[in-house]
């Protein structure tokens, strides 16, 4: 494409059916302790 470059291969819609295993880290535990963020986590599957 000339006007648009897509920089990722998103999996969010697919994860509506496949997610929920819960093996990922609790987002507040690792570094922040004061601000809740999930967007910067990685799926452990």
């Amino acid at each position, binding site marked *: 494409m000339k006007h648009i470059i897509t920089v990722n291969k998103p999996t*969010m819609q697919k*994860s509506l059916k496949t997610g929920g295993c819960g093996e990922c880290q609790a987002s507040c535990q690792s570094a922040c302790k004061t601000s809740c963020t999930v967007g910067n986590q990685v799926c452990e599957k």
Partner: protein
Amino acid sequence: MKDRIHKFRQGDTYILLDINSGAVHVIDRMIYDMMDIFQGDNDEEVTAALRSDYREKDLQEALGELHSLMDAGQLFAPDIDVPPTFRQEGLVKSLCLMVAQDCNLRCRYCFGDAGSYGGERAVMSPEVGRAAVDYLISRCGQRKHCEIDFFGGEPLMNMRTVKAVTEYVRQKEKETGKSFKLTLTTNGVLLDDPTILWLNENRISVVLSVDGRKEVHDRMRPDAGGNGTYDRVIRNFRKLVDSRDGKNYYMRGTYTKENLDFTEDVLAMKDAGFDILSVEPVVLKDNPLGFTEEDLPRIYAEYDRLTEAYLRRHREGRGFFFFHFNMDLSNGPCVAKRLAGCGAGHEYYAVAENGDLYPCHQFVGRKKYKLGNVYDGVQDTELPRYFRESHVLNKETCKDCWARFFCSGGCHANADLFHGDIRKPYEVGCEIQKKRLECAILVQALLALESMEGQPET
């Protein structure tokens, strides 16, 4: 359709985020303008509105590209409802143990009243700590990975319990097949050689509290006698990080109204030899160190500065991790996780020194949020359900916000602090979060582009 996208410009870069798919597109100025009008089925309206600004041929070409994205499910992806993978009840997977509700520092912004959390200074007994481990195992179901964070106050003031719990955890891992990740958050004052050796041998990840520049740290994090602590703790942290090959740590700081030039603090940490970093805004109500809406323009500008510094250092081969800029745009969390958020109150609990359970470490001491204790479990069944259901799709201010699947609705404790209601997010925190997310998306998009350019064409 506008509520399904978010677009922003930073410097010369234009970004389009498709909210419900998570697709990130770097676009040109023309697409940026078109997205004010384009709805997916109104091409003629778009060309009529922009014909005077752009060539017809270019507009048609761009419309073709937008329709291709729609066909690929990467533009105007359908709205997301609560998926079946989001269980009605959470399984507990993480505990924060307040092993010492006491502290040897007197940080000026402490949310825990110098460790006491509004109560008497006290430390957790090994018995309470072991009961917490048993409680977690009894409530985590089939899940393999569990987490415990040794927190306080200052957890190194109670190594007796830290060691007893760790030994018990390792024993229970063998018996149950579970895998525990242990972390410890410390101010570093008591971090001597034997403690460093023990932490390494027992595979404890650490969060190291430093506020960046020496003068900022010493002003904000004095000891009980009012003396600066930077020189002492940075020496100890240096030893610790060197002894574990620069791995399994985070260096974490807080910025306040007194250091709005916090890019300097992030870079000071890096220049002191640390490169896994997090610096966060203080959250205080009615306090001169805390933030108000009037501070936001200055904070936004500083995140722009930090973004530039982050990218510059990366390109110079002197890069560092910054917690809020880390974002895996392709392999991020599932929707169930994005709804569960931090898990406070349903997947994540804090254990007070006496064994009482609270939704998270910040709620400790807020009596109406006491859920039960490690011996009898959670007695209050309503509150955990309320926390579980207080996700972004159930909060008025979140359900239409573009950032809803990245921020998970903000910190419940902060919402309670400012509004007495965990479903009413702390607005200044939201605005800072959104700015940080834009910076993170931009950083990851630019790095991805640079990586693409470095690859041979196929």
